[in-house]
């Protein structure tokens, strides 16, 4: 009896979100056929890339049973630092790499506070969210940083195309492939699931739980900073309020993708689907001329329905 139940939920977990995405595609296309035009699909992919990068990192954290509210602020702070470095004449590529490294360090700080400090991830990242945002405002003096030069390489990152595909979408796909491999094929990924499934048993099995957690929060910081680099390039500036409430979209995508907030269960592919569902909702409703106020209502309702379906099966 038990076996049957897990089998069923496995199928839902794997294909439920995907089915929802396909349905969404069909409905929107029927209502407005221009949705399916190649240009719009590419546009959709570009729009989702930033949320996707953040949500990929968030997936690892949520799999351990944690949460990261600070990713939006990490995005903003690393974006501001990158822009600042470029304005002061640093090579754009170097500025981006240093910015990403700083984002990783911010994540590592989260990880150390969570694991060594033994504090709840929600509280830790709520605090660092405020701190990193505050630092962004201090650094930018509350004003956008502009005039970051005209390096083609840098502009490509947010606005360019590679073989006809927007570069942000390419970055998203590459990141997905690397992180999918990391999560599902390496011992690091196995440890991520183990910690979320049973932290005490993992510790006693000799897993360096603290170290893995620090690495995972560092990874989430890195992903947020990469998203920050893309956003900076697209806007050709760093905004002090960039990335606000991005953590919520990322968490929503992870949950939509079937990952359990209590950890241990979920897949990266699900998150990709979750990101695409949110992106498709945004894009589709814009095409259909739904007011942005109503869009929020719909998005919230979709999350509720998804979680409800997820509960029903168990």
């Amino acid at each position: 009896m038990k076996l049957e139940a897990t089998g069923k939920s496995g199928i839902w977990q794997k294909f439920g979100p995907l089915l929802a995405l396909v349905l969404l595609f069909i409905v929107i296309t029927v209502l407005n056929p221009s949705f399916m035009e190649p240009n719009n699909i590419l546009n959709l992919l570009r729009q989702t890339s930033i949320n996707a990068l953040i949500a990929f990192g968030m997936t690892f954290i949520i799999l351990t049973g944690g949460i990261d509210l600070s990713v939006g602020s990490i995005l903003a702070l690393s974006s501001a630092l990158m822009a600042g470095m470029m304005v002061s004449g640093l090579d754009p590529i170097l500025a981006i790499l240093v910015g990403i490294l700083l984002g990783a360090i911010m994540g590592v700080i989260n990880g150390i506070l969570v694991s060594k400090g033994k504090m709840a991830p929600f509280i830790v990242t709520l605090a660092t969210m405020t701190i990193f945002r505050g630092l962004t405002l201090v650094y930018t003096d509350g004003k956008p940083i502009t005039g970051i030069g005209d390096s083609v390489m840098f502009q490509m990152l947010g606005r360019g195309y590679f073989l006809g595909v927007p570069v942000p979408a390419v970055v998203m796909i590459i990141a997905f492939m690397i992180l999918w491999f990391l999560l599902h094929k390496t011992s690091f990924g196995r440890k991520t699931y183990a910690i979320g499934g049973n932290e005490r048993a993992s510790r006693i099995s000799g897993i360096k739980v603290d170290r893995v957690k620090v690495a995972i929060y560092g990874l989430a910081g890195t992903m947020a900073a990469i998203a920050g680099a893309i956003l900076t390039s697209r806007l050709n500036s760093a905004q002090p309020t960039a990335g606000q409430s991005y953590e919520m979209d990322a968490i929503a995508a992870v949950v939509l993708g079937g990952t359990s907030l209590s950890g241990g269960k979920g897949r990266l592919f699900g998150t990709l689907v979750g990101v695409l569902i949110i992106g498709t909702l945004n894009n589709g409703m814009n095409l259909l001329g739904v007011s942005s106020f109503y869009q929020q209502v719909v998005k919230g309702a979709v999350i509720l329905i998804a979680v409800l379906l997820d509960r029903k099966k168990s």
Partner: protein
Amino acid sequence: MQIKMHNIYKAFGQNKVLEGVHFSLEAGEVHALMGENGAGKSTLMNILTGLHKQDQGTIEINGKETSFRDSKEAEEAGMAFIRQELNIWPEMTVLENLFIGREMVNAFGVLKTKQMKARAKEIFKTLNISLPFDKEAEFCSVGEQQMIEIAKALMTDAEVIIMDEPTAALTDREIEKLFEVMKGLTKKGVSLVYISHRMEEIFAICDRITVMRDGKTVDTKRIAETNFDEVVQKMVGRELEDRFPSRESNAGDIVLDVKGLTRKGLFEDIHLAVRQGEIVGVAGLMGAGRTEIMRALFGVDQIDSGEITIEGKKVSIRKPTDAVRHGLAFITENRKEEGLILDFSVRENIGLPNLKSFAPSGIVKTEDEMNFAEMMIKRLHVKTSSAETVIGNLSGGNQQKVVIAKWIGTSPKVLIMDEPTRGIDVGAKREIYELMNELTERGIAIIMVSSELPEIIGMSDRILVVHEGEIAGELLKQEATQEKIMALATGGN
């Protein structure tokens, strides 16, 4: 109350769990229900208490055919089921726990604390127990929590109380207390169904015994008319060799030498040495500090002072990772909380402490892991449909074998086993004992903590007895008796 369950059948999907079970219960008797894991005991009791409905068969209560629609109805009819996992709200007080879900309130919904206290006092008096009402349940011992459950059952005027492995986590003193309470209850006409794997207890307290095997009743007998061997034989359905396989001690050099291990308030100045191929049993009452010593030795908890030497080299163990690196392995007393990742497959669980060898470059070689898991499954006779089965779906005995399998893979020098056969049926126990012999033959040293004295005496080459955080004495296999161990464990000589 008199109950007759007649020819009960029950299947879950394809899985036939009960196939013609007969069970009867007289007023005021203690009736033992025995059988290996998966024999159908729990399902039968779940049917009696209204959680499941039988597919076929009848239940008669006081001669009248009855069926319960749900557990609420069964409760109203006087049935209570005290499960192994106690139904206790740890943050709530004793009083709040007693009245949970059936608080006494006035017309405005305000709690009538005074009346509840009076009622609770009454019940405690009949049970002859005393517990402060405002104590939070998490600070009560397991024995006390069990008393809360019994009191709760009595408050619903239960006439039948079913207890599933009630003594699994109790100290000997608490067991005595429980038995006293049970005797008191039967005098009042309450019937008790007692599910346990512990033979000694069953013969001490029960009036009749029903043995189940593979979903059928094998036999019901008065306890005076049967004996230990007969019961075991009926449970496993074959002549069982002795409960413990014979073992020859061929201890080699000292592998692990612990000196002066101290964690203030829990244990002090522990000296302990194990030789290659030796089994050292660690006995003592629950709460004496046995488990705490093992946890500290493995780096789960910190020590205040002490020295650990492995194969002549002084080592520092601050966390489990260190212990694993130095060749220790730890099978904890609670496999679900600390031994296994329940959502993982058998393969993934076995692989967990061995990731270094299966993923030297960081990429898991699933095929190697799979081969190893399959080999272990075969060698340890784990009953599972495949290595990919989620471990949570296996029975307790098979889960325990997987815990052992995962540590064997690390080729440990010293294997620490805390209550290695708790909650496991007789057949699986024997297999685990045989496995221990096999491991010691290969030179692995084993430290076995156990609350079951026959197991300690049957399997250990040497026995250490812990009393209130200190080692009270050491006994050799030849001189050990249950009486001598108990005397040391309780602080006598």
